């Protein structure tokens, strides 16, 4: 696998959406190609960062109470 093919699969690889065979080929390429390795690390860090920043908050507690009250009226 060359760098271009590897980069084409970047997000599918990070999202664990590839077949085990292709995943293995990419892992082999990343192990021997530092520039691609850096690029993949950067994108992974970005996705982890995104998830962490956006999941901090959930539904307000009053909302859950309102929904439960409403279900009781059904």
């Amino acid at each position, binding site marked *: 696998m060359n760098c271009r093919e590897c980069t084409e699969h970047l997000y599918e690889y990070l999202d664990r959406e590839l077949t085990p065979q292709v995943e293995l080929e990419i892992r082999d390429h990343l192990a021997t190609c530092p520039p691609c390795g850096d690029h993949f*690390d950067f*994108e992974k860090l970005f996705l982890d960062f995104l998830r962490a920043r956006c999941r901090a908050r959930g*539904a307000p507690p009053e909302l859950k109470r309102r*929904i439960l009250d409403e279900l009781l009226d059904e």
Partner: protein
Amino acid sequence: MTPPTPPVPPAPSPAAEADKRASFEREALVHLDSLYRVALRLTGSPADADDLVQETMLKAYRAWHQFERGTNAKGWLLTILRHAFINEYRRRTRHPETVDIDAIEPFSVFEEVQDEDPQGTFFERIVDDEVLRAIDQLPEQFRETVVLSDVEGMSYEEVARVLEVPVGTVKSRLFRARRLLQQKLYDYAVGMGYIKGNAGNAR
């Protein structure tokens, strides 16, 4: 001649109602945080998100007998939520996109920063609200794809089912949406002085 009166369905017993409520709480209500986060990003307003989630939960409860036990309740609920949003909220909250999203070709932030900050540590200095604001500025089709995939951790297949588009579309939207988001956050970081950036470089 009067038509035959349809049989009146028997009223559910109190025990059956209690069972229904218990299973709904166990399998549907546990996804409340996810529904709220998605609703907030779709509507852009906490009050509308509240109403949208409440309405979704009520609709889901009424249709609970149609939900196939053991399948993906989160996906099922999000589909109901999205339909409710499209039918009732989109018109009055946000305007449909007029930009051609296929024409968006964002640059690679990694290439911009690989000399100065290849580890992307500047991202760490960007706070929650700024990230959420950047997501809210994405075109709706990108925004919903990113939220379901990156925030809620759904697979391409699950996202495709909720958005009712082919998996290939999810992939290409996700690619553009992430690039666009990176670009917005990078521009913000440059503006804040978190990173020098390639000011003046032709993109």
